[in-house]
């Protein structure tokens, strides 16, 4: 059959995913300069915000008496947003140095390439989740959801990492430029800052800012993680957070796959 030699059978797919995932993880581990800032910078901002905004807990209606418990959710999302850059940067590098073109000549499935790239991010996300939780608890944060809550947190962080990682892949595939992927960073930062990261939405006084925070999906991701720390099990916050994360992941993977097919045909 024509073309049969170029398409692998389904059973080959896990092997391809594993190979690409191993490459992605090895590359992450070999580039501490790329991953250390994405791990350390969120902790630095957490430390600054926790010290600088601690008096916010005295505002009537503030949901907790510990600002670090409130602010730590932002750290997880910030790390996930950094992962956008890591995923995109890795693939853009492959495109720039010609590795991607060579890969296209092999029977590698596009889904294996994407899954492999994202696997490294999920692993990094899990490491960050564990580290931030440990640092937060050591610094006095409360984790109301307990041990079961940790698994929910890990799952949510994984989905968020895939969602933002997918956005990075779209940029990398469409532009083929690491510089363009880095150029996305300010946009991501705006998404992060115009959210409920520093105060609960009901305590934001400026109407225009509260409106932006309400329509910003990042607010719901932060609030889902925050609910695990402050209230334990808040069904509404978790449903909204998981809903936003799943929609983001599905859409970003869908568009990344479409873009990838287009580039492979070029």
């Amino acid at each position, binding site marked *: 059959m024509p073309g049969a030699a170029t398409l692998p059978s389904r059973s080959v797919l896990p092997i391809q995913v594993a190979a690409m995932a191993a490459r992605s993880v090895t590359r992450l581990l070999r580039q501490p300069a790329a991953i250390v800032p994405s791990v350390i910078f969120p902790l630095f901002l957490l430390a600054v915000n926790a010290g600088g905004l601690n008096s916010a807990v005295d505002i009537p209606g503030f949901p907790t008496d510990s600002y670090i418990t409130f602010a730590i959710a932002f750290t997880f999302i910030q790390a996930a947003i950094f992962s956008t850059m890591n995923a995109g940067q890795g693939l853009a590098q492959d495109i720039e140095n010609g590795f991607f073109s060579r890969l296209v000549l092999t029977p590698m499935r596009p889904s294996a390439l994407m899954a492999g790239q994202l696997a490294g991010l999920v692993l990094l996300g899990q490491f960050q989740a564990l580290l931030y939780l440990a640092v937060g608890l050591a610094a006095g944060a409360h984790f109301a959801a307990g041990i079961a809550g940790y698994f929910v947190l890990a799952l949510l962080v994984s989905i968020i990492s895939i969602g933002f990682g997918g956005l990075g892949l779209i940029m990398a595939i469409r532009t083929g430029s690491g510089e363009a992927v880095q150029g996305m960073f*300010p946009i991501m930062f705006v998404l992060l800052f115009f959210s409920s990261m520093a105060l609960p939405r009901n305590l*934001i006084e400026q109407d225009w800012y509260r409106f932006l925070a309400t329509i910003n999906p990042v607010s719901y991701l932060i609030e889902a993680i925050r609910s695990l720390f402050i209230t334990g099990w808040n069904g509404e916050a978790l449903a909204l957070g998981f809903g936003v994360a799943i929609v983001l992941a599905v859409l970003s993977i869908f568009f990344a796959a479409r873009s990838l097919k287009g580039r492979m045909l070029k």
Partner: protein
Amino acid sequence: MMAGYFASAWAVSWRYLHNLYTKPAVFIPSLLFPLFFLAAFAGGLSAVSDAPGFNYYDFTAFQFCFVLIQASALAGVFAGFSIASDFELGMGRRMMLATTHRSAIVVGYGFGAALRLIVTWTVITAVALLAGMSVKGSGIDLVGMYSLGLLANIAALLFSSGIALRFRSLQAGPLMQMPVFITLFLAPVYVPQNLLTGWIEPAASVNPVTASMNAARSLMAGDPSGILLAYGAAFGLIVVMGFWAIGGLRSAETAG
């Protein structure tokens, strides 16, 4: 002799400004960055002014002073990026051959960075006033406040030029930006110094930027305090960073 020196500095400065304002991709983000911080902090955190002990008269004015110092310092850092880029592309070597005294190159970038501030200050001040910021300080107070921004700009420029001249590559960008960014955030950004708690309280008390920030806020409120300390700390920093920049210049000269 002096005329030649300043002619060289002016030529470097003109070139820097020409390159800056003919490249919107470079200029616009550096202008939007402080506006973004002003909007995010003044808009999103205004409820913090309801916290007990927060006794500043206007939260937008309070955040404006931070953004003023931050934008001024980052303008100095961005000039450092241009120095690194010029040396990376070989333009720096040509400038070193063309000047009678090579410190004129750094002075030229300093002029350029200071002139650039006029546009940045005008935009952020206009936006803050449109957002309803009230100003209590007199004209002299405001001159004092903007002068603190200028001193932050000079100190940051000298620091980043020291890095740029040693590494002569844009890859050293994070080394210029991150220390300045971290130092700015180790000052009382969100609340007055007396409301800081935990580890950041001692860090802020020894941070020279804290003195500038407190003095700028007092000048904005028309109730000057800590002015001598702020100016003393700023000039001290400029002297130290001046030696750092001269060391960088020597390193670039040695490298050829």
